[in-house]
């Protein structure tokens, strides 16, 4: 599948890497569009200011605060690595890492599998498939807090779901009073909310596969499974990679579902890292410690993302 092609300025591109330019040309001082240099900066500056104010400065401030003891209304006292050492011995934090890891391990594969299955289903010639796409996307467009509040009512001891299950002899289930069931509810609601977005992205990837390729594989005698694994999956792999990276990042940052449906309980069975961070900062008023948690979460997400970027070379095909 690997091939050489030329990018827009004529560099040879191989397997996602850019071949170095001819060194003899030296540093490129020409500006292809002409005009003074400040014009370019003027175009870039609004974006740079936004990046600095909303991304870089808060990130740096959070990193610095992580090395301090500070409250929302009080001063800042730098305490070195004390917060990070404390994190390693904090059973509540370690539990939140475990809960979030379980969430990621269950939610991400389930989300990708459901999204892919739905995208493939909607590729078939079923009536009203465009309407179905819109319907499945609606949960992703509606606010998570509102959705979660409705689901909390549905999953109560005497809520509609238990009434239904009791009616067919399968209930009641302790959805919100047992830790394992509560985590299952949080994962289930998250799946319901977000699979529509991935379904659309993967669907677009599937739609872009040339019908000729599929027809050729049919002529060659490939069955449905063979076609999926040998044709569809490799050709949709860039979209699959994109959705997986974003879904993993979102999963590590899960907050609203647990905050609204369970408040982290029963006990700390649904206490995600983000919810613990929020409680530490705004309920316990320990801004420095919360910033240390944010830094660790950032590192965890960065490691997972870099691992995925490194791994994509082995399974993502861009042609």
């Amino acid at each position, binding site marked *: 599948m690997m091939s050489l092609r030329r990018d827009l300025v004529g560099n040879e591109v191989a397997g996602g890497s850019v071949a170095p330019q001819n060194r003899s040309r030296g540093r490129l001082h020409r500006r292809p569009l002409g005009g003074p240099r400040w014009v370019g900066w003027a175009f870039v500056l609004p974006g740079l*200011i936004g990046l*600095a*104010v909303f991304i870089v*400065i808060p990130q740096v401030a959070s990193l610095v605060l992580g090395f301090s003891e500070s*409250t*929302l*209304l*009080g001063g800042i006292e730098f305490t070195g690595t004390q917060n990070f050492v404390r994190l390693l011995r*904090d*059973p*509540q934090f370690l539990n939140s890492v475990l809960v979030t890891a379980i969430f990621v391990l269950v939610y991400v594969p389930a989300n990708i599998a459901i999204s892919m299955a739905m995208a493939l289903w909607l590729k078939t010639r079923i009536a009203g498939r465009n309407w179905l796409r819109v319907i499945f996307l609606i949960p992703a467009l509606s606010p998570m807090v509102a959705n979660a509040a409705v689901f*909390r009512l549905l999953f*109560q*001891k*005497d809520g509609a779901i238990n009434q239904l299950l009791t009616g067919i002899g399968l209930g009641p289930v*302790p*959805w*919100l*009073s*047992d*830790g394992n069931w*509560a985590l299952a509810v949080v994962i289930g609601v998250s799946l319901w909310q977000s699979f529509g977005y991935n379904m659309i992205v993967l669907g677009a990837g599937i739609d872009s596969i040339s019908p000729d390729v599929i027809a050729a594989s049919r002529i060659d005698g490939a069955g449905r499974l063979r076609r999926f694994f040998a044709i569809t999956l490799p050709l949709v792999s860039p979209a699959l990679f994109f959705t997986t990276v974003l879904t993993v990042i979102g999963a590590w940052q899960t907050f609203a579902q647990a*905050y*609204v*449906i*369970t*408040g*982290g*309980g*029963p*006990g*700390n069975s*649904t*206490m995600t890292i983000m919810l613990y961070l929020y*409680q530490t900062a*705004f*309920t*316990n*008023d320990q801004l420095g410690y919360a910033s240390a948690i944010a830094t660790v979460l950032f590192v965890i997400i960065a490691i997972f993302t870099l691992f995925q970027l490194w791994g994509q070379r082995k399974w993502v095909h861009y042609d």
Partner: protein
Amino acid sequence: MKSLTKVGRKRRVSAAVAVAGVLALGLAACSGGGSSSGLDGKTLKMYTWIGGKADRQQWSDYIAGGKHADPKMAVSFSGPPINDYYTKLPTVMKSSSAPCLVTFQNGRVGQYVQGLEPLDELAKKNKVDLKAYSSAMLEQLSVKGKLYSIPFNAGPTVVLYNKKLFAAAGIADPKNDWTVDDFIAAAKATTKDGVYGFAIPQGSNPISTIMAADGHPYADSKGPKLDDPNFKDALQLLVDLSNKYKVAKPLEAAAGGSFPDIDAFSTGQAAMEMQGLWDLQHEQQALGKDNVGIAVIPSKTGTSKGFIGGSGFGITKTCGDKQKAFKAIEAMTSKSGLEYVTKAQASVPARLDALDAWSTNVGSPAFASVIKQMTGDATPSPVPSNQAQLDTLLTQYEVNAFSGKSTVSEVLAQVKAGLAQ
């Protein structure tokens, strides 16, 4: 070449300085604290909890009461619902749009004193007689001997009951000397046809109220008394109401700051609830004015004491005109101001000299006798600075006692461990 590089470097440095200056100016604008800080022209800005129409009406009534006492007073208000209020408050107090006035409920000033102006000097300067206010409330709203909030509402926690459901079960209205056994008997009698006798509230408030009824404060200067056997007994009673007596729905995992007990009572799914008197008007609107009764908190002996959890106004440290802000508080909590409020609001005024007007305008003689007992003989208790954390942890862990996964002692040990983090 060398000079050109120098010029380029100088330009880059100048550009960097200019960008840094712009950013610094922007950030400086966030710190607030000028002479107009917290005011919108001549109008004082107040940040408070607004959960809906009822809250909006309440604050409009207090402002109208203040205007009645001092026509020059001008206060505007804004804010989020109560479950978001305390988490947003410190951020708002730190922002460039920090208000002059803030409000506190259940004496929860401890966590915010770093951003609040002590009011003792202002009270002295303006010759305000603090003895006119409920002393239990003044104590709750003080930290280390300094007063940070003037109370406007001394709403004690009471039992609210559905009169129709009591009558249908053949139960007489509770008397002021009813005991825990009487309470359980009433809850048993009213539990039928899908209706529970009692709706259990989340968090520490029901525990502190049950403890106070028998004269035991739930906290002291060191914090919540989780090792006190009375604390354990109070939580055990709540668990027993669900698991042993089957007169209440067990608590389930829920977001902190939500009120499933109020929802159950106001929709007729529970015959009794234990809430602050601030909820009375809402329940009267939901169930009918003559259908809601109030009773003292049941005690073991029958001589119940009250748990005061009222509200007060405070002034932010960044307020540009603290004298004006204090005058507004003085007006809104004056005798005539609070008497005016009782014409529209059911909440009990924090001034003892406005209680008669409350009895006349809002309550019945039966209501007045309950309030007098709950406010006149209250169990004084400090509100710990980690109150929000206590409520969050209790809400999370007590569910395990209701589901039978943990004992009450284990729950309290888990809460204690969480508070120690």
